[in-house]
């Protein structure tokens, strides 16, 4: 049933001495909404541009719809790109912008007209068809860019941070539109963003990238619940990270010694630390329980409430114990006053024992 639309095999791309993409293997199923997620410089845009044929890999292979990507296939290429700054033709009307790709494919005039009409209607641009790009808002221009790409009926649509230039409210609105659009047209979307919330909202599959490599890929739920590394845990959502030393385990779980005492947590599939290895222990703020309920959990400890912040739906508490500051998100409106001693804790099934990573300091060290 499933068919692979985009396939990358051991793809490497260097710019001078900088390795932008450092050996990527990736298969994207047909009709999926896949997001390449990571901070700037992680190689996500270079990867997207290579799929689109804008850059050629230094080594490795990229297949789109079973055919290798080549720079010279012109209009016959199965991909179309939606650029971050829209890249509309400023001297053409909306109708001319949208018709451009069809004109290049030498589609007949009458055919162009009907196809442009159809796509313009799909994106709700009927009223703007005679306008020039600069007479339109950012959101409208973005829609024109989508229409211009989609009217040529690509097999795969590539989107390079297409909502980056919009304000927050418009961005949320366009996210929903994009999701609906992808369902309507039913083609593969490959989307690049550094916004983890956007990635989680939109994607069937998130591909987390770091320093030119893929660190984890899967549905949002899986990535959030079972981050493969401390980098993923920190980048997607929030995490309290505690330094520890592994002192044993049973394959699925491990116990590590930390400043808060021995802690047990689940191990990601690829991480099997030996006793004595340094590890990072990760616990999400919403999994930290504060108050009397904590006493019944696998791990609990007494700490001093050092900070409270009321955020409406939840409250962010900071509890300090043994020099470690632990962030906790709790519901409810009544909070103990700062300075009181409380019990906090979590279930071992919510804690992850991850590989040590120099880039992350223990939660406590930043707020002693």
């Amino acid at each position, binding site marked *: 049933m499933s068919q692979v639309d985009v396939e990358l095999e051991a793809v490497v791309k260097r710019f001078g001495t900088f390795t932008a993409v450092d050996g990527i293997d990736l298969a994207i199923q047909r009709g999926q909404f896949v997001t390449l997620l990571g901070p700037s410089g992680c190689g996500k845009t270079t990867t997207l541009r290579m799929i689109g044929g804008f850059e050629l890999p230094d080594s490795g292979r990229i297949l789109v719809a079973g055919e290798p990507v080549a720079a010279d296939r012109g209009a016959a290429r199965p991909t179309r*790109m939606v650029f971050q700054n829209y*890249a509309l*033709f*400023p001297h053409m009307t909306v109708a001319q912008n949208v018709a*451009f790709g069809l004109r*290049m494919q030498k589609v007949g005039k009458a055919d162009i007209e009907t196809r442009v009409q159809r796509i313009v209607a799909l994106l709700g641009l009927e009223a703007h068809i005679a306008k*020039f790009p600069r007479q339109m808002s950012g959101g409208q221009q973005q829609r024109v860019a989508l229409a211009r*790409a989609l009217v*040529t009926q690509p097999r795969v649509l590539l989107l390079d941070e297409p909502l980056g230039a919009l304000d927050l409210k418009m961005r949320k609105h366009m996210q929903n539109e994009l999701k609906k659009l992808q369902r309507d047209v039913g083609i593969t979307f490959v989307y690049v963003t550094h916004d983890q919330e956007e990635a989680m909202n939109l994607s069937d599959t998130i591909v987390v990238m770091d320093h030119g490599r893929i660190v984890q890929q899967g549905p949002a739920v899986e990535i959030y619940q079972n981050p493969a590394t401390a980098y993923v845990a920190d980048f997607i959502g929030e995490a309290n990270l505690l330094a520890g030393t592994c002192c044993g385990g049973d394959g699925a779980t491990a116990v590590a010694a930390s400043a808060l005492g021995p802690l047990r947590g689940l191990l990601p599939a690829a991480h099997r630390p030996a006793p004595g290895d340094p590890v990072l222990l990760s616990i999400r703020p919403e999994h930290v329980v504060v108050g009397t309920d904590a006493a019944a959990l696998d791990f609990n400890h007494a700490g001093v409430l050092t900070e409270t912040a009321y955020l409406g739906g939840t409250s962010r508490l900071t509890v300090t114990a043994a020099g470690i500051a632990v962030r906790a998100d709790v519901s409810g409106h009544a909070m103990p006053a700062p300075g009181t001693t409380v019990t906090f804790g979590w279930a071992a099934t919510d804690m992850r024992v991850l590989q040590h990573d120099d880039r992350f300091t223990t939660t406590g060290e930043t707020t002693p």
Partner: protein
Amino acid sequence: MRAKVSTVLAFLAAPKLWLIIFFILPMMTMVLYSFWRVADYQIVADFTLRNYQKIGGNLYVNVFLSTIRLSLYVTALSLLIGYPVAYFLARKVRRFRLTLLLLVILPLWTSYLVRTYAWMLILGTQGVVNQALMSLGLIDAPFTALLYSDVAVTIALVHIYMPYLILPLYAVLEKIDPSVLEAAWDLGGGRLRTFLSVILPLSLPGIASGCLFVFIPSMGAFVTPELLGGTRSIMIGSIIAQQFGVAYEYPFGSAMALVLMGLIFAAAAATLRYGRPRGTA
């Protein structure tokens, strides 16, 4: 410390005064002269339309027309040669861009008189071109038609004024968003079609101002046609210059200069009106 109001006013007045003395007054004088006449080698201040009627005669209309035609040739040739240069500088080179730009500007540091004389040396009967062709045995006698012709004037004017076309065109071409060109490529636009339907229309403002910068000085050129055009290629600038020199016909010269200015203003207005891509402010 507070500046005196009168000091501030004096500073504000200075540029205005400058404009009045060096621009408006001479212009007014020209306008006045153009309605006066010369009698017994004296300028006589009585109102006449004779100077303008004289311009309307066949002889001068023809010189105006041939000046416009030659200036259009010069402009078209400059564009034909200058566009690829500007395009190459703006979009194809990275490393030596500044050096190459400097090479474009370099001739402007040499007096145009010197450059005109240089063309005399190149195109003359004993010039470089003829010498080379003869020593190669391609011709027996030197071409005499090279110098003192429309061709010589055109070549020299193209050489002298082309940098003024390249620079504004370069500035416009360099500003075209590369992602717009990537989008054109992505949508299947080949090189030629992308050039014709995207780059060319977007560079229209640069073409317009660059062409004006060549056309305007060409229309007014007088030293170059004087030296390289001989009697076969006469431009209106030379004739106007003569009226203020040997002919001592300030009124007629003023009238011709004003007509020339009117033509140039019309050309500039038309170019600026139509020389911008659609959809831009």
